[in-house]
């Protein structure tokens, strides 16, 4: 479909008029500015989440010992004499998880790259609705602000884990964080869901309707395919989380019993009967599982772009890549109860979800093979983005294979809620998706800011991160296999786990090194914005449309007419061409194929 809707803007000719600071930087409706806003807010939240993890890792490595830094951050109430309070431990774990999964990897990753890349890579002036796009950011900002505010509540922030299962999350008597802290968490997440839905709708409409002339779906870069399916997943699954959240709010505030039944707590038999905590779990994980693919798919899309551009080779198996994005997207909706094998649900479901979950391994494996084969016989240029992308593939393999073990209900019996699960999801999300996000930032920084990130600092950042991150999470598999549960404040009560005490120290030391390494990135990021080398228009000699826009941003992206697309984006090192890349806007020669030759 090549219909083209000109968005009603008079910026087609790219003429400038001085714009007030507020509409240019704060309340912008320009997708490029909104992308940067998402990136910066997401990164700031990520640093908060990361510091929290370092704080609780101090307690895990040196249980019960006094640390001035804990008292510095948490005060006398939550770290009396510098020793972390057990309730605050659970609170830190909860908020760390919430921030990383939602604020960094969903809003920070999708929000940044969907906003930046969709209009630019499909050849549109901007998103279908600039207003909705702006609102999507500001709801995200408000949501972040409220989540941070919840940290200062007297009884502490939400502490029932990022999965906030009731009754623990419904009853303030069960844990102090389930009071006002939990209320603010729920408000924050409701706003977050609104932000995601607004964004997702916009992305879908834009991709379907605003592709420029010649930009058939089969000529879309894989980053756009990934962001497209991600947006669909979000629009279908976030409303279910909203319903889970609303029902929880009702149980907490209006005396309903959706999730509560037969509870005696704090000396009182509660009235609620007939509810089921499992209802919450089903509703939560119905979003929860697609959520991790909402995180992963953009990461995979970014990786495809970075690897093919820097291998000077087409991405291998474009059709299979698109097919596997669609398959992963579809399958992600029918696997959620693998988070619930030992919750007491009917064992028959265990068999069903084992089957569907293991199926996802197939498209995932296909993607890995395609990445590896893209490297094969390539001419690889190790830009910082490229090294992060390779790191992403490595961690995706490692995390993915342990997923096969956890998918098996029988094996999950002894691994559920142990460090094995912690290792698995950190390696796929905390490593794989984060490494891909870094790859995206290093690759598209010149597009966002017009300057280049310092290359050597990029390499240093990569090696320190890649080494320390595996150092943190790989050993945790062993803890999990030994039966060490997660979300435990301390393990000193168990002679059974005494042998892992030094492993906890090793993990924490790697975590501290990895954490410090991120400041190198932060320094590079901020410094290069103002004093970085100026970037040429197409610094990576890439084929996609975003590199045909001027370095200095203009509303409407292209001065003059929108580009016309003649070919797919992967004509790298095509035989018979002068250069080793052919941008999508270059017309076809006689008899030349526009895509995978032969199709």
């Amino acid at each position, binding site marked *: 479909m090549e219909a083209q809707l000109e968005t009603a803007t008079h910026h087609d000719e790219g003429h400038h008029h001085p714009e007030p600071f507020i509409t240019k930087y704060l309340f912008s409706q320009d997708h490029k500015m909104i992308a940067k806003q998402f990136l910066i807010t997401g990164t700031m939240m990520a640093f908060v989440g990361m510091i929290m993890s370092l704080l609780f890792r101090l307690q895990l490595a040196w249980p019960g010992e006094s640390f001035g830094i804990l008292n510095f951050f948490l005060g006398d109430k939550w770290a009396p004499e510098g020793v972390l309070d057990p309730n605050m431990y659970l609170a830190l774990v909860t908020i760390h998880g919430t921030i990383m999964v939602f604020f960094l990897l969903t809003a920070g990753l999708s929000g940044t790259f969907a906003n930046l890349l969709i209009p630019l890579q499909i050849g549109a002036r901007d998103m279908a609705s600039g207003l909705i796009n702006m609102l999507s950011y500001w709801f995200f900002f408000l949501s972040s602000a409220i989540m941070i505010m919840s940290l200062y509540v007297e009884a502490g922030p939400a502490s029932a884990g990022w999965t906030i299962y009731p009754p623990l999350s419904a009853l303030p008597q*069960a844990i102090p964080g389930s009071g006002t802290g939990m209320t603010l968490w729920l408000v924050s997440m409701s706003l977050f869901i609104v932000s995601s839905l607004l964004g997702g709708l916009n992305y879908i409409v834009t991709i379907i309707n605003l592709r420029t002339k010649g930009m058939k779906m089969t000529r879309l870069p894989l980053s756009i395919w990934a962001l497209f399916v991600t947006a669909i997943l979000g629009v279908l699954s976030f409303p279910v989380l909203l319903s889970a959240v609303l029902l929880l709010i009702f149980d907490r505030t209006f005396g309903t019993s959706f999730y509560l039944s037969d509870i005696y707590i704090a000396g009182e*038999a509660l009235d609620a009967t007939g509810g089921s905590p*499992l209802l919450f779990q089903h509703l939560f994980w119905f979003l929860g599982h697609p959520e991790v693919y909402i995180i992963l798919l953009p990461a995979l899309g970014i990786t495809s772009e970075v690897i093919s551009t820097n291998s000077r080779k087409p991405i291998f198996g474009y059709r299979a890549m698109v097919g596997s994005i669609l398959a992963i997207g579809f399958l992600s909706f029918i696997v959620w109860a693998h988070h619930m094998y030992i*919750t007491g649900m009917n064992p028959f479901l265990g068999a069903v979800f084992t*089957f569907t979950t293991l199926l996802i391994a197939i498209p995932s494996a296909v993607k890995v093979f395609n990445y590896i084969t893209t490297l094969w016989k390539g001419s690889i240029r190790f830009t910082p983005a490229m090294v992060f992308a390779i790191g992403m593939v*490595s961690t995706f393999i490692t995390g993915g294979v342990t997923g096969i073990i956890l998918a098996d*209900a029988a094996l999950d019996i002894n691994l559920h809620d142990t460090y094995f699960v912690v290792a698995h999801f950190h390696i796929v999300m905390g490593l794989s998706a984060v490494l891909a996000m870094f790859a995206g930032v290093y690759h598209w920084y010149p597009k966002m800011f017009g300057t280049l990130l310092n290359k050597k600092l990029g390499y240093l950042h990569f090696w320190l991160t890649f080494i320390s991150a595996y150092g943190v999470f790989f050993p945790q598999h062993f803890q999990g296999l030994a039966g060490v549960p997660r979300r435990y404040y301390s393990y000193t009560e168990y002679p059974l786990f005494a042998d892992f005490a030094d492993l906890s120290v090793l993990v924490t030391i790697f975590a501290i090194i990895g954490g410090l390494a991120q400041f190198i990135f932060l320094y590079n990021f901020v410094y290069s914005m103002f004093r970085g080398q100026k970037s040429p228009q197409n610094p990576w000699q890439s084929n996609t449309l975003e590199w045909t826009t001027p370095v200095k941003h203009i509303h409407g992206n292209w001065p003059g007419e929108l580009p016309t697309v003649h070919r797919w984006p992967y004509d790298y090192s095509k035989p018979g061409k002068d250069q080793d890349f052919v941008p999508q806007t270059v017309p076809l020669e006689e008899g030349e194929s526009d895509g995978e*030759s032969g199709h």
Partner: protein
Amino acid sequence: MNILLAVVVVLGIITFTQLIRVFELTKSLNGTKDNEVTVKENNGIANGFMLYLIGYFAFFIWLVWKYGPFLLPEAASVHGEKIDLLMNFNWVIIITAFAITHILLFYFAYRYRRTKGIKADFVTHNEKLELVWTTVPAIVLAIVIIYGISTWNDIMRDEPEDALTIELYAKQFDWTARYAGEDGVLGKSNYRLISGTNPMGLVTLETIVEKLAELDKKKAKYELKLSNAEPNGTIAENTKEKIRKVDKHLAKVVAYQKELEMDNNVFLTGNDDKPVKVEFHLPVNKPVKFFIRSQDVIHSVFMPHFRAQMNAVPGMLTSFYFTPNKTTDEMRIITKNPEFDYLLLCNKICGAAHYNMQMNIIVESEEKYNAWLKEQPAFYAEEASADEEVKEIVASN
């Protein structure tokens, strides 16, 4: 420890800032653009990836060597042994896939680094290859699926009829194991009957009467308070609300009592039950079925040595069964640890002391187990120390 950490962090920060200054200075000296990768840099990184591959595998092997011995010992249950076999089968598959893909990934990155005079190959796809690498994993996964699901069905179905039934009752922050008494039947329970002398809410004639008496007393106390309070003041309103709640609770217990009166026997089965704390015993080689309940929030029964885990959900009865096949003494020999004990731990976040909610498990011969069980006091025997008032009411019924 604190000082050491502080020194390391400060040194780290100093190192980094100095490195950054060095980079900035050298950058301005040799003049490469930050989007151009020099041959030296490119080769250096390619070598780096090969080194990384070796280091990564070495790290993996070192971890297996160092922490392998601390993993769980062989399974102490019949189904547990099946799980371990399934696990090992899966390890073989995934470690093979992990190793092959990693070697290819890092080797290709190294081998196909940009080299002068060599262009990349314009290969877009290969249907045959793609078919192979889709079907082979599909077949392997089909085997994994079939083997996995059949193990799961083995574990979850075909409950043995002669299983010993034990209730595991979870609350913040301890466990109680309840054994059926001579009648072999676990008594009913109802959360509205929970009280100081009846912490599990067991249903017996006595406990119902006791609860009603307790609630009556409570109501009387509030009514007194109400009569002394200023009418329509906050205290009066709060107390009225409290009385409403007690009334509601009373009504529910009375209704429940009526419901039960239809079935006389239900009152008799709870008295001889044996609630046990801190440590519970199991006879070896006999199937045991656990009924799992929770008083307040979700907890989880995790008994890793038996490869057993099941959530304890308030408002629901869950269950899990297995047959322990190694006594504690046998396990002490196997693990070469004379202080080894089987453990029940809570494995679902449940509050501040979630990390210390455990119970010891002893597996022993049937004779020893029976001897131990005989010594455990029955619920009603403990009840015997209840209010005199209640005793009279009971006697008069």
